[in-house]
C-alpha cells in the first residue's frame, strides 16, 4: 500500500536520507531500525509531508502523495505519532481524542457518533479512568497514550509510530506490543514503527528495514536481520537497548 522510491533529502551538506526505497503491504508490521542519525525520523517526516524530499516519490495505494501538506496525507489515511511526544496540554483526555474524531468525521458530524468513537478508542487504550484529566497533568507515558489514541481516532489505514516504546519498562512494553498487535490484526491497521527497543521489534514485527547513514542497509525478517553481518557490524555492534 505504501511505496517509497528513491527518497532523498539533504540538509545542507548532510544527506539525511539517501535514495531510499521500500514498500509496505497491507497488514504488515514493519520496523525501521538503525543507529541514531540514520535518517529514520526524517523518513517519517518525508512520508507524512512535514518535509519535502529533494528527490523521490511516495505513493499510497497508488496515489502520489509526495510533498502534500500533512493534513492531506493524514486524511488519506496515514497517521503518526512523534518522537518527542506532542499534545494539546490544556485539553482533557476526552477532548484531546475527540479532536481526532472531529477531524475524521468533520465538525458537523453527529455528536453521538463522535462521542462513541472517542469513548471506544479511550477504552481500547485503557485511558478510561483518566478520561477527564487534563493532559498537561499526565505522565509522559500517558501522554504518549493520548497521542496514540488521538491518532487512532482518525481511523488510519497506516500508522507510523516514532519511538513509542522509549522510556517504558518491560511490562509496559509487553502491554504495548499486545495492543499494537490487536490494532493491527483486529482493526486492520498497518504499522510502521521506528524503534530502538530491540525486544519490542523482534516480538512485534514481521519485517525489519535497517537504515544506516540514510540508506537502506538491509531488509528482512527478524531472524534474517539478527544474523545479518552488515547489520551487526553497523548497528547492533554499537550497543543497543535490549529491554
Amino acid at each position, binding site marked *: 500500500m505504501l511505496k517509497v522510491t528513491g527518497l532523498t533529502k539533504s540538509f545542507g551538506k548532510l544527506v539525511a536520507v539517501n535514495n531510499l526505497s521500500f514498500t509496505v503491504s497491507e497488514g504488515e508490521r514493519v520496523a525501521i531500525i538503525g543507529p541514531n542519525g540514520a535518517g529514520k525520523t526524517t523518513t517519517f517526516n518525508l512520508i507524512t509531508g512535514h518535509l519535502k524530499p529533494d528527490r523521490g516519490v511516495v505513493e499510497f495505494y497508488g496515489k502520489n502523495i509526495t510533498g502534500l501538506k500533512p493534513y492531506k496525507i493524514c486524511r488519506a489515511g496515514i497517521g503518526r505519532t512523534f518522537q518527542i511526544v506532542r499534545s494539546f496540554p490544556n485539553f482533557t483526555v476526552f477532548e484531546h481524542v475527540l479532536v481526532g474524531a*472531529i477531524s475524521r468525521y468533520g465538525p458537523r458530524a453527529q455528536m453521538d457518533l463522535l462521542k462513541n468513537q472517542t469513548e471506544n478508542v479511550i477504552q481500547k487504550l485503557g485511558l478510561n479512568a483518566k478520561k477527564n484529566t487534563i493532559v498537561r497533568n499526565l505522565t509522559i507515558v500517558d501522554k504518549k497514550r493520548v497521542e496514540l489514541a488521538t491518532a487512532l481516532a482518525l481511523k488510519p489505514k497506516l500508522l507510523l509510530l516514532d519511538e513509542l516504546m522509549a522510556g517504558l519498562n518491560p511490562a509496559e512494553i509487553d502491554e504495548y506490543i499486545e495492543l499494537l498487535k490487536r490494532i493491527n490484526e483486529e482493526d486492520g491497521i498497518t504499522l510502521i514503527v521506528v524503534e530502538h527497543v530491540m525486544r519490542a521489534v523482534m516480538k512485534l514485527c514481521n519485517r525489519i528495514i535497517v537504515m544506516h547513514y540514510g540508506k537502506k542497509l538491509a531488509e528482512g525478517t527478524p531472524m534474517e536481520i539478527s544474523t545479518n553481518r552488515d547489520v551487526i557490524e553497523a548497528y547492533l555492534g554499537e550497543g543497543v537497548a535490549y529491554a
Partner: protein
Amino acid sequence: MAGHNKNNIYLKKSLFYPRAIRFLPIIITIVILIMLPLYASSYIVFVAAIALLYAMVAAGYDVLLGYTGQLSFCQGAFYGIGAYLSAILTVNYGWSFWQAMPISVLFVGLVSAIIGYPALRLRGAYFAVTTFFLAHFVYLIFLNEVSLTGGPLGFRGIRPPEPIGPLSFESMANGYLLILFSFIIIYALLRKFVNSNVGLILKSIEQDDILAESMGINTAAYKLLSFVISAIVAGYAGTMFAHFFRLLHPTTFSWFLSEMVVIITLVGGVGTLIGPVLGAGIVTFILEFLRFAPEIRYVGWAIALIAILMFEPKGLMGLIKRIGVR
C-alpha cells in the same frame, strides 16, 4: 448528571443550583443595560455604547488571539474600513444603512480573506509585524484619500440608521439600544461558535498547530476562518460606530486603536471571550472618567497592563477565578 439527583440532600448542601439560576447574573446585567437610558445621563449612555463597541471588537478578536493564538494588530483597520465604507455608501451614494451595513461587512470579510490567505502562513512575530503595517497602510489611505474619506477634515453628516417601522434610531438611547442588541446577538453567536466542535479545533491549533496539522486538520483554513470572523465582527462594529457617532476622523483608526483592542483583550483575559468584554467595559469607563487627567490615564493604564502581564497573565478572568467568585 443533573437530573436524577435533585432530591439528594448532599447536593443541596453543595452549591448546586438548578441550571436556570446560572443565567441569573447574565439576565440581571442585560436588564440593567437595557434600562440604562432610563436612569443614566446621556453621557453615560454614550460611553456605554462606545464600551459595547469595543467589547464587540475585543470579543471577536479573542477568537483570533485567544482561541487560535494569532497576535494581530489590524482590528483597527477592519473597524475603520467598515465605518468609512458604510459612511461613504450612505452619505455619498444615498444608500440606506440597512443596505450599506451588510455590504460593508461583506467587504471587510473579503479584504480580510484576501490578506489573511498569504499572511497567515507567517509565523508569530512576522504575522504580527505584517498586520501592524497593514493597519498603518489602511490608516494612510484614510488620511490621504481626501476625496473619498475627507481625510484630516473628517467625514461628517452621517445619518443614523433608517427607522424600522416606528422605531427610529435618531436618539442616543435608541442608537445605544441597537448597539446593545447587536452586541448580545454577536456575543451569543461567538460563544456558540467557540464552544462548538470547530471551536475545539481552533483551540487545538492554538496549543500545537503542528500536531493539529498531522491529525488531519487544515490549520491554514481554520486560521483564516478565525481571522475573517474577527475581522467581520470588527467591521460590523465599525459600521455601528459610524452611524452612532456620525463623524469619522482618520486618527480614530490609527494603530492605537488596534493596540487598545489587544490590550483590552489581554487585560480581560485572553481566551475566555467574556474577559475581553469585561475588559472593554472597564477600560472604556476608566479612561473616560480620567478625562480630567488626559496624559496620566494612558500611562497609568500602561503600567497596569504591564503589572497584569507580570503578575496575572490571565487578566481579569484569572483574577476573578483566583478570588473564587463563582
